[in-house]
């Protein structure tokens, strides 16, 4: 077999769930050995059974397992691995971990700790952007030497007051009118002081109807930098992305190129290698501002892979082992088609998206042409409370946006997970929403249309089918053919709990 021989490497994936499987798939495809790690509760998880080898790394709490640097390094040494891929989340953007890996003579599949350090911190990244000529959201720290009224006028209303020390919206205030400014600053300071024991606040230009658009970068160790078509990630709930698409219907190809070149400039400045993402905010007039760098492979990377045909993870691995990466940037720019991703989380959309933990009793994935499912779950999988409750990602690709949306909808309506609650129906409602179909949406979309998105119409059907399949599989129900087009549940099944 072509795969075997001295080039066969042993690569450990320091992660779990769908991303661990996704990465191990590339490892396998390159002919290497995929090694998994697991905590107690993950002993029988799909990523463990998918791996060639798997090692136990500790208790369920992430700090004792997937975040346990010493334990993972120790395990890697014991397993004699050649390289470690961190995935996303957990230790992916921890320079200390990367350093430890490298000092153990293990190859780190990711940006160098140095580059990671440069782009990792928000303030450092901001000055890096400014130095590379990438616009940042204009802002001013408010100290005693600055007249807030003047500063705000300079930025232009509306402005945002933010707590220097904080996050999570604490001390944050939007001011649209000069008359409110001073009062709002005082209130924000009080709030900031109460929450973070630091009354320092700063003023920032408030971006109205912002879009969250990001550029994927891939770089090797020879100074080759490539940018990929933009990803539109404006659909967010609780500041977390839930649906991403590429390309964006909001900006044109020229703008996309400008963003791409800006991103490359910034990453070059940081000496960045491997895969990474530069995130931008784009306002309603299509002015863009640097937001932050994600120094890792991202959850939504598949949509880029789908429309460009480039396997980002394989290239990450190859460049980490010192291979040159050769693409033609023009070809990457010249994309055809459209791709969209839905993140399936185990969470209750009707209940402020709280995680819906438990065991998946029934699991059935759709099987459609050009629909890719990156999943970390199957029948019997536990969704534990300890980790991010992502189940899978459904990625549809079409010749145009409308086709890929239809495809995604069809895929979701054939995706059956029971009994835990998922974002499937919620996303179906997003996909069929007229505003979304028209491509007219920004980061406020979900908040604005929340009630419509919760409305359950025929979208109850997937759950009903899931129940049906589950109960049939338990021997509780029998009989009847079932398809989505003709949902022909026996009335004795559909009228659950009827008494009369």
């Amino acid at each position: 077999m072509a795969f075997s021989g001295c080039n066969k490497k042993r690569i450990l994936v320091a992660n779990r769930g769908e991303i661990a499987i996704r990465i191990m798939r590339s490892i396998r495809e390159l002919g290497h050995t995929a090694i998994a790690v697991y905590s107690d509760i993950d002993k029988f998880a799909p990523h463990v059974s998918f791996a060639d080898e798997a090692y136990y790394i500790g208790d369920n709490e992430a700090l004792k397992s997937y975040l346990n640097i010493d334990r993972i390094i120790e395990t890697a040494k014991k397993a004699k691995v050649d390289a470690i891929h961190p995935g996303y989340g957990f230790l992916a953007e921890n320079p200390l971990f990367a350093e430890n890996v490298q000092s153990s003579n293990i190859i780190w599949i990711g940006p160098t700790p140095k580059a990671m350090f440069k782009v990792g911190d928000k303030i450092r990244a901001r000055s890096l952007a400014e130095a590379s000529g990438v616009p940042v959201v204009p802002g001013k720290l408010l100290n005693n030497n600055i007249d807030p009224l003047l500063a705000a006028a300079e930025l232009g209303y509306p402005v945002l007051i933010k707590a220097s020390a904080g996050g999570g919206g604490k001390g944050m205030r939007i001011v649209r009118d000069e008359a409110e400014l001073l009062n709002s600053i005082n209130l924000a300071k009080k709030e900031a002081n109460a929450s973070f024991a630091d009354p320092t606040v700063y003023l920032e230009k408030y971006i109205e109807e912002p879009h969250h658009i990001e550029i994927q970068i891939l770089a090797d160790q020879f100074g080759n930098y490539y940018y990929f078509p933009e990803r539109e990630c404006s659909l967010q709930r609780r500041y977390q992305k839930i649906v991403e698409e590429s390309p964006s219907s909001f900006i044109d190809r020229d703008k996309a190129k400008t963003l791409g070149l800006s991103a490359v400039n910034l990453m070059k400045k940081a000496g960045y290698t491997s895969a990474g993402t530069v995130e931008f905010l784009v306002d309603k007039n299509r002015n863009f501002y640097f937001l932050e760098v994600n120094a890792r492979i991202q959850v939504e990377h598949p949509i880029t892979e789908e429309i460009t045909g480039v396997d980002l993870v394989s290239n990450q691995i190859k460049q980490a082992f010192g291979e040159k990466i050769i693409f033609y940037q023009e070809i990457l720019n010249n994309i055809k088609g459209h791709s969209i991703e839905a993140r399936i989380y185990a969470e209750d959309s009707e209940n402020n998206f709280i995680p819906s933990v438990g065991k998946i009793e029934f699991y059935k994935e759709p099987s459609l042409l050009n629909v890719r499912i990156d999943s970390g779950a199957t029948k019997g999988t536990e969704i534990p409370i300890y980790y991010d409750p992502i189940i899978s990602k459904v990625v549809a690709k079409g010749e145009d946006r409308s086709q890929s949306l239809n495809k995604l909808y069809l895929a979701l309506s054939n995706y059956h997970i029971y009994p835990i609650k998922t974002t499937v129906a919620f996303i179906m409602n997003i996909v069929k929403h007229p505003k979304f179909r028209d491509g007219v949406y920004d980061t406020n979309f979900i908040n604005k249309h929340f009630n419509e998105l919760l409305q359950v119409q025929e979208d109850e059907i997937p759950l009903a089918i899931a129940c049906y399949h589950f109960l049939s599989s338990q021997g509780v129900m029998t009989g009847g053919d079932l398809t989505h087009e003709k949902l022909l549940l026996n009335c004795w099944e559909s009228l659950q709990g009827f008494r009369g």
Partner: protein
Amino acid sequence: MSRIYSNINTKDPIYKKRYEHNKKLLNKVNEIKEEVQKGGSLKAHEVNKKRGKLFCRERIEKVLDKASPFLEIAPLAAYNIYDDNVPSAGIVTGVGRISGKEVMIIANDQTVKGGTYYPLTVKKHIRAQQIALENNLPCLYLVDSGGAYLPMQDEVFPDRDHFGNIFYNQAVLSSKGLLQVALVAGLSTAGGAYVPAMCDQTIIIKEQGAIFIGGPPLVKAATGEVVSAEELGGADVHTRISGVADYYAVDEEMGLRKVREIFAHFPNCKKYELDRVAPVEPYYDPDEIYGIVPETTETFYDVKEIIARIVDNSEFEEFKDRFGQTVVTGFARIGGYLTGIIGNNGVIFPESSTKAAHFIELCCFRKIPLIFLQNITGFIVGKKYEHQGMPKDGAKWITAVSTANVPKFTVIIGNSYGAGNYAMCGRGYNPRFLWMWPNAKIAVMGPNQAADVLCQVKINQYKRDNKILSEEEIKNIREPILEEYRNKSEALYSTARLWDDGIIDPARTRQYLMLAIELSLNKKYDEVNFGIFRM
């Protein structure tokens, strides 16, 4: 199909009044139902519990599939009939799912007169078996009965539809390949011993179930032999020595689990494939039915408003909408299933009769089940119509209804008077199920007409004796007649006597029909075979 256009204004004060009135009627029925579903007296329950036995309704809940519907048959049977209180006629019957199969469950209520059979208990038991036979349902008997109620043995034992018929039915059901299972959870004495014995598979519970032709007191009286119930016909005896029962259960839990296992291993039969699409809820809210139905049955209301609140998406393809308009006929879907619906918008004329007969023919040839929404005062009378041959056209309809090969379902949503009851598939015409709404009335004719007729008879009698009655005297004769007649026309009066399968919540009519249609699919729809239509 086009959607029915509703003319109901839910802001109308009349709507609101009707809504409250009908809700009140329903609440009354529900309250009685709730009371009745508690079974026998507290003391009886205590005794039952002390013996470690479950209440029959608990047994049913435990044996059913999780979240299975339970379509109870005539819960208010025997209400206010006997001098003793006999809730639900001492027997709970209904259809539910066990291990994925739709099963008729017949459960004796030990807390009501020791589960003995009153005349209406027998009638209810046999009605359940008839439903099973008509719809090809296997049966589960949860046996816990002292046998016939001896003080009324003359009304329980000898006749065709009496006790003996129960075992006859068991044999017939079994001969049709329908599984008969008994769980003997208490006494099964004398004739009652044949319920488990006639079953295909029988489970008996240790120190709780007992089967014998003669119980210990009878044995002692007859032979002087002193023997305990367990020794005479307990679980051990029948599963090890006599072979009357097949499975030995140490307690009820185990027995009920065994029941589920038995049904799980009974082969599933293929259902009749009635035309179906994905179901859609009605466009108009069924809850509005309360505000549509008038406070008195004398007031007219449009049956299409009701159809709109029963059928899928409120869509109704009306047949002959311009002809014989006092009968409304048309096709609609309920729970996705194609159905033919016949309703009343007034008294029956010759042309409405032929229209209905025509429509029934359509459904029979296409094998579409028929639903009758009964609100009928009767056929038109008068010289003109007799000359036109009203009985001849009425006969066409009655012939069609009687010999229709498809399942029929009847809901009495208002009046059910006289020959209208026949044409609209009353109990005598073997609908698979017949339900009444709380407002429904049933009698040979309307109370006023009846009182008038009866008064006239009296007046004529006096006339022959040359006695002329004053207005006052006539009123004194008429009022009590009217009062009694009204009482005997009530839905509660009917359901107590098992003239129907229960009083149902009008807003849930759709669900009842869905379950009933689904049950009917267990049996192949027959070929068309009408009688002679008088032309």
